[in-house]
């Protein structure tokens, strides 16, 4: 069986299982046959294409499946020359192309089939999924996530202006394991500077909302904190996909979050309006296909005097 499950896996894997759709990982186009095709011919198709199951289609509708097991039985009992329609299994369990991969996994757990035909909304056969498809798609996606991270680390030059403190944190898409770390660090830095509780809270909330936006909605990006004597400027930038309608995104309650983001406790559509609410200055720029940069300023309620701060 596939050693992935949604309950106790690291969150990045859980996320992939929900984000990837069956149509992203299925094999297509799929080799099908009609009910009049002889089993012998299907056996040849299987051997030549190295597949273990062939869906049977009649008038664009999926009507059955022939698996290697069916072929073996046909050879054994001597009906390999007869049309497959008579012998195919009609008890079909299918996946839909829009289902998340997690659903595919639970199908493999639940039903002991080696493959599932995939249909679209119009009930047409569009592909086929084996457990091998799932495993290789996950490996590819995990590799891609790692490569993105490495590229980001290497591209960091981080010039620091004299007299100011600058901190940069890389934030990865859907990385719930590390989501919020940058903001937690920011809060610690503000505590060390001895700024008021209200300032700490406003800056942390703004930072956290922006950081979670990168995690939930973007392809990844970074958080940059620029401290000066009386303020911190927080810049959250991502590499896309960009926001098509900024006015809408600034409306309370508007959210493009899907159900699993909501199940993690986010996506109520309060992020940007709330960030603006707690900030002294707020600006946002977004280009579809390029990315979004949000820059906010939090002015310290009481100017920090780190030198005089009691130990």
């Amino acid at each position, binding site marked *: 069986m596939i050693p992935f499950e949604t309950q106790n896996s690291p969150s990045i894997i859980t996320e992939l299982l929900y984000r990837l759709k069956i149509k992203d990982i299925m094999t297509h186009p799929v080799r099908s046959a009609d009910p009049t095709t002889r089993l012998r011919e299907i056996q040849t198709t299987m051997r030549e294409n190295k597949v273990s199951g062939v869906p049977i289609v009649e008038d664009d509708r999926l009507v059955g499946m022939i698996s290697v097991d069916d072929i073996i039985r046909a050879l054994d009992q001597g009906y390999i020359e007869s049309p497959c329609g008579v012998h195919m299994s009609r008890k079909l369990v299918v996946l839909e192309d829009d289902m998340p991969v997690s659903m595919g996994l639970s199908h493999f757990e639940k039903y002991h089939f080696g493959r599932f035909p995939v249909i679209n909304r119009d009930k047409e056969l569009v592909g086929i999924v084996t457990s091998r498809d799932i495993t290789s798609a996950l490996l590819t996606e995990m590799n891609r996530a790692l490569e993105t991270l490495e590229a980001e680390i290497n591209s960091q030059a981080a010039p620091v202006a004299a007299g100011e403190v600058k901190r940069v944190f890389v934030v990865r898409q859907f990385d719930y394991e590390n989501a919020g770390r940058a903001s937690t660090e920011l809060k610690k830095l503000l505590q060390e500077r001895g700024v008021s509780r209200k300032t700490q809270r406003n800056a942390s909330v703004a930072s956290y909302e922006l950081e979670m936006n990168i995690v939930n909605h973007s392809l990844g990006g970074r958080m940059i904190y620029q401290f000066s004597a009386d303020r911190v400027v927080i810049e959250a930038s991502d590499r896309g996909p960009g926001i098509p309608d900024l006015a809408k995104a600034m409306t*309370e*309650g508007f959210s493009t979050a899907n*159900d699993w983001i*909501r*199940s993690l406790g986010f996506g*109520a*559509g*309060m992020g940007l309006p709330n960030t603006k609410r707690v900030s002294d200055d707020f600006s946002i720029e977004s280009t579809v296909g390029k990315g979004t940069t949000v820059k906010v300023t939090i002015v310290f309620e009481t100017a920090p005097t780190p030198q005089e701060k009691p130990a």
Partner: protein
Amino acid sequence: MTIADLEARLGYASLVAYTDAELAGAYTSDLLSDVIAHAPENSVLITLQAHKNTVACASLAGVLALVLTGKAEVPADLLDAARQENLAVFRTADNQFTASWKIAGLLGLGLGPIPGSKENL
């Protein structure tokens, strides 16, 4: 208590017309899967999940009324769905904690039995 008490006694704003009925209990949750699995029948659901799917889940569980907390706008498709399912919908500025406490008061729930606490340090 009945559905109308939410409006009459707590001042919650009713967003769709409804048929009054006796409420047997209440359930507070933001997670729809939890609502389907655990919300009791003939109850009021207190949630800040102002989403069309909330109506579907609530009516699957046999919930009679929704109390929506939180600041987000209540979408029109939620209200349409509620009319179809004959589900009462109320909105309040109270947060979930306060709304739950007040509704417990309406249901006549006092200080209940306190289960034994454990320390696990």
